């Protein structure tokens, strides 16, 4: 607990320091606020529109969690399929890589044509980014079962399903949770990008409108909220990982 407090204090201190440097630079250089606003201006703007930003932030966060939920489900199913079946692996694995390599923003206009401007295109964009690390990690967890463990299970005449159920899936759980925080960040990115391209609400949408109107205080306020939300989401899933699969960490300590 003391350790966490230290981290919080250090983070706050480094943010405060960055803010002070930023403020001083803007004041000394005389950059106009429509190019780079001072943090004091951003803070004042943020306070005046906070309730509205809060609503948009909720749109982004709820969309992110929906994307993550669907992406995790899809990632688990694909991961188990690919990790378990050689045929599925040959058919699906390269395709998976392809989907991941195409920038998600390329899919969003197509989703917008299919489903209209709104929630669905950005949630799907989040799903597209989020499922990939989960699928890949589940595959890794399943495929790195020690050969001797396989032999021991086979010498007990275990079926492949039994090996999957007793060894493979529990073994893949820490891999799944390790990828969940990466996937959560991906779902967040997908949602924000989706909101910038094909939505009428959310922090991405606010950011787009603010920059179109050259309201840089609002744009920076939004950006900072995005940053804080990103940190919050990542830390939350990082903590969840350590809570769910403690053996994955402690067994390393005892080696």
């Amino acid at each position: 607990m003391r350790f966490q407090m230290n981290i919080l204090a250090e983070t706050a201190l480094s943010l405060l320091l960055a803010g002070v440097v930023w403020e001083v630079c803007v004041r000394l250089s005389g950059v106009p606020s429509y190019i780079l606003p001072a943090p004091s201006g951003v803070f004042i703007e943020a306070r005046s529109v906070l309730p509205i930003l809060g609503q948009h932030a909720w749109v982004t966060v709820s969309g992110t969690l929906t994307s993550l939920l669907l992406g995790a489900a899809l990632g688990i199913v694909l991961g188990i399929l690919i990790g378990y079946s050689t045929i599925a692996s040959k058919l699906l694995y390269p395709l998976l890589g392809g989907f991941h390599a195409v920038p998600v923003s390329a899919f969003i206009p197509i989703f917008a044509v299919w489903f209209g401007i709104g929630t669905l295109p950005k949630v799907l964009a989040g799903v597209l980014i989020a499922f990939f690390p989960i699928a890949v990690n589940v595959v890794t967890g399943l495929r790195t079962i020690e050969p001797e463990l396989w032999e021991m299970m086979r010498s007990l005449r275990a079926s492949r399903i039994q090996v999957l159920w007793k060894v493979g899936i529990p073994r893949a759980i820490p891999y799944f949770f390790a990828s969940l925080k990466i996937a959560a960040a991906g779902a967040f990115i997908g949602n924000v990008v989706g909101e910038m391209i094909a939505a009428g609400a959310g922090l991405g949408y606010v950011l787009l409108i603010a920059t179109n109107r050259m309201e840089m205080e609002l744009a920076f306020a939004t950006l900072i909220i995005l940053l804080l939300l990103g940190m919050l989401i990542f830390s939350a899933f990082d903590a969840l990982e350590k809570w769910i699969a403690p053996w994955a960490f402690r067994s390393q300590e005892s080696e």
Partner: protein
Amino acid sequence: MPAATELLYSARDVGLRYKGAGGSNVEALRHVDLDLKAGEFVSIIGPSGCGKTTLLKMFSGLITPSSGRFQFKGEALKEPPEGIGMAFQDPLLLPWRNVIDNVLLPIEVLRRPRRDYVDKALDLLRIVGLSGFEKKSAWQLSGGMRQRVNLCRALIADPVVLLLDEPFGALDAFTREDLWIVLQELHGRTGSSIVLITHQLSEAVFLSDRVLVLSKRPGHVVHEERIDIPKPRMPDTPLTPQFVQHVGNIRHRIER
């Protein structure tokens, strides 16, 4: 306990070739002849890469010979038969399970009723000196303790034969010698046959009824040493002239 004369395994002129890396033909075993009786403790010893582990996999039914006759209870093995227990140098405990759940894993795989084996698991854990540890997580144990749990897991389903591939290879000398006593005790109580692969001459002599020496690759049996020291053997048995004589005989036969 089966009659001591019942023949469990017999190998006649067994050979094994397989395609190695880069398509080269590897001949791991050639002209292997051996027998294993029910309840016997046999060690297999030989230079590195002589095909000891390959031979053990053949005992387990995981691989089948390319030539010769290899039989388990009078029949050729095509897949792992019922009644095999295995343990390796790496204990390979499942870290998400506690000690007793690790021990009971084979029971679950064999779809036998778990409750029928809980007492047996506790009994095995007591014999190996782990009473009171049944609810501990695998990662809380030392290397020697993990290997004790591994032995219990290999024995829980009453195997006809226990196959051990250098189970004590990664342990320090004191722990290893403690585990010799434990394994001897387990062998005496369960009546399972045991095949032990080891690099350690004194380990082989201490535990075995017979020690088979394999040649360099392609491996075959070049020497059989019958160990007639009465059981149970004691911690100071390795100091007796008889023991030293056996170790000397085997050492003399190992090709380097």
